[in-house]
Protein backbone atom coordinates (compact mmCIF):
# COMPACT_ATOMS: atom_id res chain seq x y z
CA UNK A 1 0.00 0.00 0.00
CA UNK A 2 2.87 2.22 0.93
CA UNK A 3 4.58 1.42 -2.40
CA UNK A 4 1.45 2.28 -4.34
CA UNK A 5 1.05 5.53 -2.45
CA UNK A 6 4.68 6.38 -3.11
CA UNK A 7 4.34 5.64 -6.81
CA UNK A 8 1.29 7.89 -7.13
CA UNK A 9 3.04 10.64 -5.22
CA UNK A 10 6.10 10.35 -7.48
CA UNK A 11 3.92 10.41 -10.61
CA UNK A 12 2.05 13.55 -9.48
CA UNK A 13 5.34 15.19 -8.52
CA UNK A 14 6.86 14.22 -11.88
CA UNK A 15 4.03 15.64 -13.97
CA UNK A 16 3.93 18.85 -11.90
CA UNK A 17 7.63 19.59 -12.18
CA UNK A 18 8.30 18.05 -15.59
CA UNK A 19 7.48 21.24 -17.57
CA UNK A 20 9.23 23.36 -15.02
CA UNK A 21 12.59 21.65 -15.50
CA UNK A 22 12.36 20.38 -19.12
CA UNK A 23 12.23 23.83 -20.75
CA UNK A 24 9.24 22.74 -22.80
CA UNK A 25 7.37 25.93 -22.03
CA UNK A 26 10.25 28.08 -23.36
CA UNK A 27 10.59 25.89 -26.46
CA UNK A 28 6.85 26.13 -27.05
CA UNK A 29 6.94 29.93 -26.77
CA UNK A 30 9.91 30.10 -29.11
CA UNK A 31 8.19 27.86 -31.64
CA UNK A 32 5.01 29.90 -31.50
CA UNK A 33 7.01 33.09 -32.02
CA UNK A 34 8.89 31.55 -34.98
CA UNK A 35 5.64 30.33 -36.44
CA UNK A 36 4.13 33.81 -36.08
CA UNK A 37 7.15 35.34 -37.83
CA UNK A 38 6.87 32.78 -40.63
CA UNK A 39 3.19 33.55 -41.13
CA UNK A 40 3.97 37.29 -41.15
CA UNK A 41 6.56 36.67 -43.86
CA UNK A 42 3.97 34.70 -45.81
CA UNK A 43 1.54 37.65 -45.58
CA UNK A 44 4.26 40.04 -46.73
CA UNK A 45 5.28 37.94 -49.72
CA UNK A 46 1.65 37.21 -50.68
CA UNK A 47 0.75 40.90 -50.57
CA UNK A 48 3.87 41.75 -52.61
CA UNK A 49 2.85 39.12 -55.17
CA UNK A 50 -0.70 40.53 -55.18
CA UNK A 51 0.66 44.02 -55.92
CA UNK A 52 2.85 42.61 -58.70
CA UNK A 53 -0.12 40.80 -60.22
CA UNK A 54 -2.14 44.00 -59.94
CA UNK A 55 0.57 45.90 -61.80
CA UNK A 56 0.86 43.18 -64.46
CA UNK A 57 -2.87 43.38 -65.10
CA UNK A 58 -2.67 47.17 -65.36
CA UNK A 59 0.17 46.87 -67.89
CA UNK A 60 -1.75 44.22 -69.86
CA UNK A 61 -4.73 46.58 -69.92
CA UNK A 62 -2.81 49.36 -71.69
CA UNK A 63 -0.45 47.18 -73.75
CA UNK A 64 -2.69 46.36 -76.74
CA UNK A 65 -3.33 50.06 -77.35
CA UNK A 66 0.36 50.90 -77.34
CA UNK A 67 1.18 48.23 -79.93
CA UNK A 68 -0.22 50.54 -82.59
CA UNK A 69 2.98 52.52 -82.17
CA UNK A 70 6.11 51.38 -83.96
CA UNK A 71 8.03 50.80 -80.76
CA UNK A 72 9.68 47.46 -81.56
CA UNK A 73 10.02 45.86 -78.08
CA UNK A 74 6.40 46.63 -77.21
CA UNK A 75 5.18 45.35 -80.56
CA UNK A 76 7.24 42.22 -80.11
CA UNK A 77 5.62 41.60 -76.74
CA UNK A 78 2.14 41.68 -78.18
CA UNK A 79 2.90 40.37 -81.68
CA UNK A 80 1.62 36.90 -80.94
CA UNK A 81 -1.85 38.09 -80.18
CA UNK A 82 -2.44 41.15 -82.36
CA UNK A 83 -5.08 40.44 -84.97
CA UNK A 84 -4.14 43.44 -87.09
CA UNK A 85 -0.61 42.13 -87.50
CA UNK A 86 -1.89 38.86 -88.91
CA UNK A 87 -3.83 40.53 -91.72
CA UNK A 88 -0.87 41.36 -94.02
CA UNK A 89 -0.07 37.63 -94.08
CA UNK A 90 -3.20 37.05 -96.14
CA UNK A 91 -1.38 38.60 -99.12
CA UNK A 92 1.20 35.83 -98.95
CA UNK A 93 -1.14 32.86 -99.15
CA UNK A 94 -0.80 30.54 -102.14
CA UNK A 95 -4.49 30.96 -103.06
CA UNK A 96 -4.11 34.71 -103.55
CA UNK A 97 -0.98 34.23 -105.67
CA UNK A 98 -2.62 31.44 -107.68
CA UNK A 99 -5.75 33.51 -108.38
CA UNK A 100 -3.59 36.40 -109.54
CA UNK A 101 -1.59 34.15 -111.92
CA UNK A 102 -4.80 32.54 -113.23
CA UNK A 103 -6.22 35.96 -114.00
CA UNK A 104 -3.15 36.76 -116.10
CA UNK A 105 -3.55 33.41 -117.89
CA UNK A 106 -7.22 34.10 -118.66
CA UNK A 107 -6.29 37.53 -120.00
CA UNK A 108 -3.81 35.72 -122.29
CA UNK A 109 -0.79 37.45 -120.70
CA UNK A 110 1.07 34.14 -120.95
CA UNK A 111 4.55 35.48 -120.31
CA UNK A 112 3.46 37.12 -117.09
CA UNK A 113 1.34 34.14 -116.02
CA UNK A 114 4.24 31.75 -116.73
CA UNK A 115 6.54 33.76 -114.46
CA UNK A 116 3.88 33.83 -111.72
CA UNK A 117 3.12 30.08 -111.94
CA UNK A 118 6.84 29.26 -111.85
CA UNK A 119 7.08 31.43 -108.76
CA UNK A 120 4.14 29.63 -107.09
CA UNK A 121 5.70 26.22 -107.85
CA UNK A 122 8.99 27.36 -106.33
CA UNK A 123 7.51 29.06 -103.24
CA UNK A 124 4.53 26.89 -102.26
CA UNK A 125 5.77 23.32 -102.60
CA UNK A 126 2.84 21.89 -100.60
CA UNK A 127 0.03 24.01 -102.02
CA UNK A 128 -3.20 22.32 -103.07
CA UNK A 129 -3.03 24.38 -106.27
CA UNK A 130 0.24 22.84 -107.37
CA UNK A 131 -1.08 20.39 -110.08
CA UNK A 132 -3.20 23.13 -111.61
CA UNK A 133 -0.30 25.59 -111.43
CA UNK A 134 1.91 23.08 -113.27
CA UNK A 135 -0.74 22.48 -115.91
CA UNK A 136 -1.34 26.17 -116.54
CA UNK A 137 2.42 26.77 -116.73
CA UNK A 138 2.74 23.96 -119.31
CA UNK A 139 -0.19 25.39 -121.23
CA UNK A 140 1.27 28.91 -121.07
CA UNK A 141 4.66 27.69 -122.28
CA UNK A 142 2.95 25.87 -125.14
CA UNK A 143 1.10 29.05 -126.07
CA UNK A 144 4.36 31.04 -126.29
CA UNK A 145 5.94 28.14 -128.22
CA UNK A 146 8.62 27.47 -125.60
CA UNK A 147 8.41 23.72 -126.24
CA UNK A 148 11.69 22.76 -124.54
CA UNK A 149 10.67 24.22 -121.25
CA UNK A 150 7.14 22.91 -121.74
CA UNK A 151 8.42 19.33 -122.07
CA UNK A 152 10.67 19.77 -119.06
CA UNK A 153 7.80 20.93 -116.86
CA UNK A 154 5.56 18.17 -118.22
CA UNK A 155 8.09 15.56 -117.19
CA UNK A 156 8.08 16.91 -113.64
CA UNK A 157 4.28 16.92 -113.71
CA UNK A 158 4.15 13.27 -114.83
CA UNK A 159 6.61 12.35 -112.09
CA UNK A 160 4.79 14.16 -109.32
CA UNK A 161 1.11 13.85 -110.26
CA UNK A 162 0.82 10.74 -112.47
CA UNK A 163 -2.83 10.12 -111.59
CA UNK A 164 -4.09 13.68 -111.92
CA UNK A 165 -6.40 14.30 -114.88
CA UNK A 166 -4.57 17.53 -115.65
CA UNK A 167 -1.46 15.44 -116.29
CA UNK A 168 -3.51 13.66 -118.97
CA UNK A 169 -4.28 16.98 -120.64
CA UNK A 170 -0.61 17.90 -120.38
CA UNK A 171 0.38 14.62 -122.00
CA UNK A 172 -1.88 15.40 -124.99
CA UNK A 173 0.09 18.64 -125.37
CA UNK A 174 3.32 16.62 -125.13
CA UNK A 175 2.13 14.36 -127.94
CA UNK A 176 1.29 17.39 -130.07
CA UNK A 177 4.80 18.82 -129.53
CA UNK A 178 6.31 15.48 -130.67
CA UNK A 179 4.01 15.48 -133.70
CA UNK A 180 5.20 18.96 -134.62
CA UNK A 181 8.76 17.67 -134.44
CA UNK A 182 7.94 14.66 -136.63
CA UNK A 183 8.57 12.24 -133.74
CA UNK A 184 5.42 10.30 -134.46
CA UNK A 185 6.30 7.06 -132.69
CA UNK A 186 6.85 8.88 -129.43
CA UNK A 187 3.61 10.84 -129.94
CA UNK A 188 1.73 7.56 -130.55
CA UNK A 189 3.15 6.01 -127.42
CA UNK A 190 2.04 9.03 -125.37
CA UNK A 191 -1.53 8.97 -126.78
CA UNK A 192 -1.72 5.23 -126.06
CA UNK A 193 -0.52 5.84 -122.56
CA UNK A 194 -3.22 8.50 -122.04
CA UNK A 195 -5.80 6.13 -123.45
CA UNK A 196 -4.91 3.43 -120.94
CA UNK A 197 -4.12 5.52 -117.89
CA UNK A 198 -7.06 7.92 -117.55
CA UNK A 199 -10.79 7.45 -117.05
CA UNK A 200 -11.98 10.82 -118.40
CA UNK A 201 -14.09 10.07 -121.49
CA UNK A 202 -13.26 13.28 -123.34
CA UNK A 203 -9.56 12.73 -122.68
CA UNK A 204 -9.76 9.17 -124.01
CA UNK A 205 -11.79 10.27 -127.00
CA UNK A 206 -9.25 12.95 -127.89
CA UNK A 207 -6.27 10.59 -127.44
CA UNK A 208 -7.98 8.03 -129.67
CA UNK A 209 -8.74 10.71 -132.30
CA UNK A 210 -5.12 11.90 -132.36
CA UNK A 211 -3.86 8.31 -132.48
CA UNK A 212 -6.12 7.52 -135.43
CA UNK A 213 -4.95 10.72 -137.16
CA UNK A 214 -1.30 9.58 -136.95
CA UNK A 215 -2.18 6.08 -138.22
CA UNK A 216 -3.84 7.60 -141.24
Amino acid at each position, binding site marked *: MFSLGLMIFLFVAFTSFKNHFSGLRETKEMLTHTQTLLEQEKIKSSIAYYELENMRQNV*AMVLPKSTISKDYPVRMLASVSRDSLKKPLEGFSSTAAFNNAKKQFRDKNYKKSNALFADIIRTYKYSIHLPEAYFLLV*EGLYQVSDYEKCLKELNVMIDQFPENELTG*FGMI*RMGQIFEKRERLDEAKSIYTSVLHSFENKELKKQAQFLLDKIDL
Partner: protein
Amino acid sequence: MKMLRIILVFLSFSMEIHVEAEWVTLLNQAALIQYPADCVEVCGYKTFPLRKYTIEEGKRKITLGSDTIILKKASEIYAFVSGEALFKGVVAIELPVGMLKVEDEKSLIYVSKRDDKYLVRTLLGAVKVEPKGAAKGVEIPQGYENTISGVIVNGFAEVGFPISIDANEMIYKWASMYDGSKKQFAAEVAVFKEIHARARNEISQVYTEISERMIASHNEQMEKEKIRREKDRRERAALQRMYERKVMGLE
Protein backbone atom coordinates in the same frame (compact mmCIF):
# COMPACT_ATOMS: atom_id res chain seq x y z
CA MET B 1 4.90 -6.84 -8.17
CA LYS B 2 2.13 -7.45 -10.65
CA MET B 3 0.44 -4.31 -9.43
CA LEU B 4 3.61 -2.30 -9.97
CA ARG B 5 3.87 -3.51 -13.59
CA ILE B 6 0.31 -2.48 -14.31
CA ILE B 7 0.97 0.97 -12.84
CA LEU B 8 4.14 1.37 -14.92
CA VAL B 9 2.32 0.44 -18.14
CA PHE B 10 -0.48 2.89 -17.29
CA LEU B 11 2.04 5.67 -16.57
CA SER B 12 3.91 5.18 -19.81
CA PHE B 13 0.66 5.47 -21.83
CA SER B 14 -0.45 8.58 -19.94
CA MET B 15 2.85 10.35 -20.60
CA GLU B 16 2.71 9.55 -24.33
CA ILE B 17 -0.82 10.89 -24.68
CA HIS B 18 0.10 13.96 -22.74
CA VAL B 19 3.04 14.83 -25.07
CA GLU B 20 0.85 14.36 -28.20
CA ALA B 21 -1.83 16.66 -26.83
CA GLU B 22 0.71 19.38 -26.08
CA TRP B 23 2.02 19.32 -29.67
CA VAL B 24 -1.44 19.78 -31.22
CA THR B 25 -2.18 22.73 -28.95
CA LEU B 26 1.10 24.33 -29.89
CA LEU B 27 0.54 24.22 -33.64
CA ASN B 28 -2.96 25.63 -33.53
CA GLN B 29 -2.44 28.24 -30.92
CA ALA B 30 -3.70 31.17 -33.07
CA ALA B 31 -6.38 31.30 -35.75
CA LEU B 32 -5.57 34.69 -37.26
CA ILE B 33 -2.47 36.73 -37.70
CA GLN B 34 -2.43 40.35 -38.74
CA TYR B 35 0.27 42.36 -40.40
CA PRO B 36 1.57 44.82 -39.27
CA ALA B 37 0.83 43.50 -35.80
CA ASP B 38 -0.41 46.87 -34.48
CA CYS B 39 -2.18 48.05 -37.67
CA VAL B 40 -5.18 50.36 -37.55
CA GLU B 41 -6.12 51.48 -41.09
CA VAL B 42 -4.43 49.18 -43.62
CA CYS B 43 -4.17 45.64 -42.32
CA GLY B 44 -3.24 42.31 -43.77
CA TYR B 45 -5.03 39.29 -42.29
CA LYS B 46 -4.08 35.66 -42.63
CA THR B 47 -5.59 32.54 -41.18
CA PHE B 48 -3.47 29.56 -40.18
CA PRO B 49 -3.79 26.31 -42.11
CA LEU B 50 -6.83 24.25 -41.05
CA ARG B 51 -8.29 27.23 -39.17
CA LYS B 52 -11.00 29.77 -39.96
CA TYR B 53 -11.69 33.21 -38.54
CA THR B 54 -14.54 35.70 -38.70
CA ILE B 55 -13.83 39.42 -38.75
CA GLU B 56 -16.86 41.43 -37.62
CA GLU B 57 -17.18 45.15 -38.33
CA GLY B 58 -20.65 46.44 -37.51
CA LYS B 59 -23.07 44.61 -39.78
CA ARG B 60 -20.28 43.31 -41.99
CA LYS B 61 -18.93 39.82 -41.40
CA ILE B 62 -15.96 38.36 -43.24
CA THR B 63 -15.19 34.70 -42.67
CA LEU B 64 -11.77 33.64 -43.82
CA GLY B 65 -11.24 29.99 -44.70
CA SER B 66 -8.09 28.00 -44.10
CA ASP B 67 -4.80 29.66 -45.12
CA THR B 68 -6.53 32.77 -46.52
CA ILE B 69 -5.08 36.25 -46.91
CA ILE B 70 -7.02 39.50 -47.29
CA LEU B 71 -5.89 43.08 -47.07
CA LYS B 72 -8.05 45.80 -45.57
CA LYS B 73 -7.48 48.95 -47.60
CA ALA B 74 -10.20 51.25 -46.24
CA SER B 75 -13.31 50.92 -44.09
CA GLU B 76 -15.34 49.13 -46.79
CA ILE B 77 -12.61 48.11 -49.22
CA TYR B 78 -10.80 44.81 -48.96
CA ALA B 79 -8.30 43.28 -51.32
CA PHE B 80 -8.67 39.54 -51.71
CA VAL B 81 -5.18 38.04 -51.96
CA SER B 82 -5.52 34.25 -51.74
CA GLY B 83 -7.54 31.38 -50.28
CA GLU B 84 -11.31 31.56 -49.82
CA ALA B 85 -13.63 33.88 -47.93
CA LEU B 86 -17.29 34.58 -47.26
CA PHE B 87 -18.33 38.27 -47.28
CA LYS B 88 -21.59 39.27 -45.65
CA GLY B 89 -22.90 42.84 -45.89
CA VAL B 90 -21.92 45.93 -47.88
CA VAL B 91 -18.37 45.61 -49.11
CA ALA B 92 -16.07 46.33 -52.05
CA ILE B 93 -13.57 43.60 -52.86
CA GLU B 94 -10.55 44.46 -54.92
CA LEU B 95 -8.99 41.76 -57.11
CA PRO B 96 -6.01 42.14 -59.47
CA VAL B 97 -8.47 41.47 -62.30
CA GLY B 98 -11.22 43.86 -61.23
CA MET B 99 -13.54 44.99 -58.47
CA LEU B 100 -16.53 43.32 -56.82
CA LYS B 101 -19.18 45.53 -55.27
CA VAL B 102 -21.85 44.31 -52.88
CA GLU B 103 -24.49 46.88 -52.03
CA ASP B 104 -27.05 44.85 -50.10
CA GLU B 105 -26.59 44.38 -46.35
CA LYS B 106 -28.06 40.87 -46.48
CA SER B 107 -25.79 39.72 -49.30
CA LEU B 108 -23.54 36.78 -48.75
CA ILE B 109 -20.88 36.09 -51.33
CA TYR B 110 -18.09 33.56 -51.57
CA VAL B 111 -14.79 34.42 -53.24
CA SER B 112 -11.91 32.05 -53.88
CA LYS B 113 -8.78 31.97 -56.01
CA ARG B 114 -8.36 28.91 -58.20
CA ASP B 115 -5.20 28.87 -60.29
CA ASP B 116 -5.24 32.18 -62.17
CA LYS B 117 -8.98 32.63 -61.93
CA TYR B 118 -11.15 34.17 -59.26
CA LEU B 119 -14.37 32.36 -58.51
CA VAL B 120 -17.31 34.43 -57.23
CA ARG B 121 -20.47 32.80 -55.87
CA THR B 122 -23.54 34.77 -54.81
CA LEU B 123 -25.27 32.79 -52.10
CA LEU B 124 -27.58 35.66 -51.15
CA GLY B 125 -28.00 38.90 -53.08
CA ALA B 126 -26.22 40.03 -56.22
CA VAL B 127 -22.72 41.33 -56.84
CA LYS B 128 -21.54 43.89 -59.38
CA VAL B 129 -18.33 42.97 -61.17
CA GLU B 130 -16.17 45.66 -62.72
CA PRO B 131 -13.59 43.76 -64.80
CA LYS B 132 -10.32 45.64 -65.22
CA GLY B 133 -10.24 47.63 -68.46
CA ALA B 134 -13.89 46.96 -69.36
CA ALA B 135 -16.13 49.92 -70.13
CA LYS B 136 -19.17 48.25 -68.59
CA GLY B 137 -19.55 46.08 -65.52
CA VAL B 138 -21.55 42.87 -65.24
CA GLU B 139 -23.81 41.60 -62.50
CA ILE B 140 -23.80 38.13 -61.02
CA PRO B 141 -27.37 37.51 -59.84
CA GLN B 142 -28.02 35.57 -56.65
CA GLY B 143 -27.61 31.81 -56.87
CA TYR B 144 -25.00 32.01 -59.62
CA GLU B 145 -21.26 31.63 -59.85
CA ASN B 146 -18.83 33.12 -62.33
CA THR B 147 -15.10 33.33 -62.88
CA ILE B 148 -12.95 36.34 -63.63
CA SER B 149 -9.58 35.80 -65.22
CA GLY B 150 -6.70 38.04 -66.29
CA VAL B 151 -6.68 40.81 -68.88
CA ILE B 152 -6.76 39.36 -72.39
CA VAL B 153 -5.53 40.76 -75.69
CA ASN B 154 -8.56 43.05 -76.03
CA GLY B 155 -7.34 44.98 -73.01
CA PHE B 156 -9.92 43.92 -70.45
CA ALA B 157 -10.31 41.16 -67.88
CA GLU B 158 -12.33 38.20 -69.04
CA VAL B 159 -15.55 37.30 -67.24
CA GLY B 160 -16.86 33.78 -67.77
CA PHE B 161 -20.39 32.62 -68.40
CA PRO B 162 -22.59 32.59 -65.27
CA ILE B 163 -23.76 29.17 -64.14
CA SER B 164 -25.78 28.04 -61.12
CA ILE B 165 -23.66 27.41 -58.03
CA ASP B 166 -22.24 23.95 -57.48
CA ALA B 167 -24.48 23.50 -54.42
CA ASN B 168 -22.97 20.29 -53.04
CA GLU B 169 -19.47 21.68 -52.94
CA MET B 170 -20.62 25.08 -51.69
CA ILE B 171 -22.71 23.77 -48.79
CA TYR B 172 -19.82 21.60 -47.67
CA LYS B 173 -17.44 24.58 -47.75
CA TRP B 174 -20.01 26.88 -46.15
CA ALA B 175 -20.52 24.40 -43.31
CA SER B 176 -16.78 24.24 -42.67
CA MET B 177 -16.61 28.04 -42.50
CA TYR B 178 -19.85 28.67 -40.61
CA ASP B 179 -19.50 29.98 -37.08
CA GLY B 180 -23.14 30.05 -35.94
CA SER B 181 -25.41 27.32 -34.58
CA LYS B 182 -26.44 24.23 -36.55
CA LYS B 183 -30.08 25.33 -36.50
CA GLN B 184 -29.20 28.74 -37.87
CA PHE B 185 -27.07 27.15 -40.58
CA ALA B 186 -29.89 24.79 -41.59
CA ALA B 187 -32.26 27.76 -41.93
CA GLU B 188 -29.77 29.69 -44.10
CA VAL B 189 -29.12 26.63 -46.27
CA ALA B 190 -32.89 26.20 -46.77
CA VAL B 191 -33.09 29.80 -48.10
CA PHE B 192 -30.05 29.20 -50.31
CA LYS B 193 -31.56 26.00 -51.72
CA GLU B 194 -34.65 27.92 -52.87
CA ILE B 195 -32.47 30.55 -54.53
CA HIS B 196 -30.32 27.85 -56.09
CA ALA B 197 -33.33 25.97 -57.48
CA ARG B 198 -34.58 29.19 -59.13
CA ALA B 199 -31.13 29.91 -60.58
CA ARG B 200 -30.81 26.36 -61.88
CA ASN B 201 -34.19 26.64 -63.54
CA GLU B 202 -33.26 29.94 -65.17
CA ILE B 203 -29.89 28.71 -66.36
CA SER B 204 -31.40 25.54 -67.85
CA GLN B 205 -33.74 27.77 -69.89
CA VAL B 206 -30.79 29.89 -71.00
CA TYR B 207 -28.82 26.81 -72.00
CA THR B 208 -31.81 25.41 -73.89
CA GLU B 209 -32.08 28.68 -75.79
CA ILE B 210 -28.33 28.76 -76.45
CA SER B 211 -28.26 25.17 -77.68
CA GLU B 212 -31.24 25.87 -79.96
CA ARG B 213 -29.43 28.89 -81.34
CA MET B 214 -26.27 26.85 -81.82
CA ILE B 215 -28.20 24.16 -83.68
CA ALA B 216 -29.84 26.80 -85.88
CA SER B 217 -26.48 28.45 -86.50
CA HIS B 218 -24.92 25.07 -87.31
CA ASN B 219 -27.71 24.28 -89.78
CA GLU B 220 -27.28 27.67 -91.39
CA GLN B 221 -23.55 27.07 -91.61
CA MET B 222 -24.15 23.66 -93.21
CA GLU B 223 -26.49 25.27 -95.73
CA LYS B 224 -23.89 27.93 -96.55
CA GLU B 225 -21.23 25.24 -96.86
CA LYS B 226 -23.48 23.31 -99.25
CA ILE B 227 -23.98 26.41 -101.40
CA ARG B 228 -20.24 27.12 -101.34
CA ARG B 229 -19.41 23.55 -102.37
CA GLU B 230 -21.93 23.71 -105.20
CA LYS B 231 -20.41 27.01 -106.35
CA ASP B 232 -16.92 25.50 -106.18
CA ARG B 233 -18.09 22.46 -108.13
CA ARG B 234 -19.63 24.66 -110.83
CA GLU B 235 -16.46 26.76 -111.01
CA ARG B 236 -14.29 23.66 -111.31
CA ALA B 237 -16.54 22.24 -114.02
CA ALA B 238 -16.33 25.54 -115.96
CA LEU B 239 -12.55 25.48 -115.64
CA GLN B 240 -12.46 21.87 -116.76
CA ARG B 241 -14.54 22.79 -119.80
CA MET B 242 -12.15 25.62 -120.54
CA TYR B 243 -9.15 23.27 -120.35
CA GLU B 244 -10.93 20.76 -122.56
CA ARG B 245 -11.76 23.48 -125.10
CA LYS B 246 -8.17 24.67 -125.08
CA VAL B 247 -6.51 21.28 -125.34
CA MET B 248 -9.08 19.32 -127.35
CA GLY B 249 -9.91 22.25 -129.58
CA LEU B 250 -6.16 22.61 -130.19
CA GLU B 251 -6.24 26.33 -129.59
